[in-house]
């Protein structure tokens, strides 16, 4: 597994797709685009955790506080940095491979820097949460901003929207988290129940709908109990039941998508290791499913 730092380096060197965009307005625009049915627009967001030196990634050269005195060891001289053509900001020299995409401000790469929120938290971890759930100041909120946007604008009871968003991660990303689960999985190949296809189907209980009166398999075990009164429901009862049911539909979707081996297109080469594999999975799912928003995660 490689770190966020290595990922950044690799990503820049290879010019691979995927750039962490963490500006709410832009995200909103992207989410809107993702929803219009006719649009083929998709969004991948990569949350790079850890501590990137943002000031040295996009350098605020026009800010007189950026100088040798305030950054005795971290200061990057003007002549070493890359000019971004806006009379204010420069980029770290190692971002050079992205300059083609940037096209001096007219290309397809946007860099949004010095973005913050009012009353900035000094807790790195609270801050991470705020960026993902979009409500600065509420560190305990467990509902992500994409989740909120999607459930407010789409009919989530319609099964065809069950796979509109997903995270390629070993846990659900906060940005997509909420009361009704969007799928998450780490590797499509492993996203299956044990045993041959017959046994896996039996375990899942896929045949439950085919006229058999008793609930079957895992889907039967995660149905809500019709005799249970609503005041007997506990905090996580619905979450667990919804996750069980979502698992059923997601398993089929992901298995169908990964049935044939995926050949990366356009000569893309993915690095070995956990994160490279997730990027490749994301590319495959974007091409083979109707997913609109995919989230990935990399540690720092």
């Amino acid at each position, binding site marked *: 597994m490689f770190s966020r730092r290595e990922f950044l380096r690799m990503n820049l060197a290879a010019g691979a797709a995927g750039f962490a965009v963490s500006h709410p307005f832009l995200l909103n625009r992207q989410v809107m685009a993702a929803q219009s049915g006719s649009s083929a627009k998709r969004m991948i967001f990569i949350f790079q955790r850890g501590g990137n030196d943002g000031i040295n990634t996009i350098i605020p050269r026009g800010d007189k506080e950026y100088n040798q005195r305030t950054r005795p060891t971290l200061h990057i001289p003007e002549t070493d940095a890359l000019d971004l053509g806006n009379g204010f900001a420069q980029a770290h020299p190692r971002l050079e491979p992205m300059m083609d995409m940037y096209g001096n401000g007219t290309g397809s790469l946007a860099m949004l820097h010095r973005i913050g929120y009012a009353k900035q938290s000094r807790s790195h971890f609270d801050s991470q949460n705020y960026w993902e759930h979009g409500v600065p100041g509420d560190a305990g909120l*467990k509902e992500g901003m994409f989740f909120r946007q999607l459930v407010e604008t789409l009919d989530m009871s319609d099964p065809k929207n069950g796979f509109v968003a997903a995270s390629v991660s*070993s*846990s659900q990303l906060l940005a997509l988290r909420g009361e009704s689960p969007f799928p998450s*999985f780490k590797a499509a190949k492993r996203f299956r129940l044990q*045993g041959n296809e017959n046994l896996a189907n039996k*375990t899942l209980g896929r045949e439950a709908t085919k006229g058999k009166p008793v609930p079957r398999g895992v889907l039967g*075990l*995660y149905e809500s*109990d019709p005799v249970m009164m609503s005041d007997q429901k*506990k905090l996580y009862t619905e979450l667990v039941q919804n996750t069980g049911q979502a698992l059923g539909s997601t398993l089929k979707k992901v298995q169908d998508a990964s049935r044939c081996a995926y050949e990366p297109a356009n000569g893309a080469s993915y690095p070995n290791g956990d994160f490279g594999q997730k990027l490749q999975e994301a590319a495959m799912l974007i091409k083979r499913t109707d997913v609109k928003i995919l989230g990935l995660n990399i540690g720092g």
Partner: protein
Amino acid sequence: MALMKEAIAAWNATPRPGHIRSVLHAILDPVNQQGPFWNAHYQMAKIKTPIEFINSTHRALGAQISGKGLTERMSDMGMELFQRDDPDGYPELGYEWMDTHNLLERLRFCQDLAMNGDFAAGEWSLQDLMKGQDLSTPEDIIEYFDQALFQEQLTERRKAVFLDFVNSDDAGYMDPVEALKGRAKQRRLEQMVGIILSTQEFQFQ
């Protein structure tokens, strides 16, 4: 939150604030046993973290642990032992541990363990359990786990799923387990134990 207020009030109620026994008394309400601590609504309402899930599965089966497979299974469930990035410790909130990936890994683990499919993650013996607890039918096994794990709270609807499972072949067609013999019968019963451990109630503690 009401309980929190009571605990804070108890903390401040003594001449020198912070008398631990008074605070615990307020929380546990040992005499009347009426407070929120005793409310059935909050019992078995917490979702097990991966390490809790793995440990409880082992305990349920009386499995022997050998090898290093368990930490890998924990990682598969998103909990890397001693590797958490954030300094605040692994969360205890259910939202953090319940998603399709995590649930699937839990189900796979139950299947593997019940059918002795991953010796690095532990092994157990259904025969020993049946002999030791004097169990002979699938119903006996279900009753045993209902008592041991669920305080006899499993509904008939859940038990029907287990029985349907044990009396179906791999393709899902009716195939009574009683008609099977030897290894085939044992395998079917082990599969059923895997399904019992997969039920939604076992996600809670």
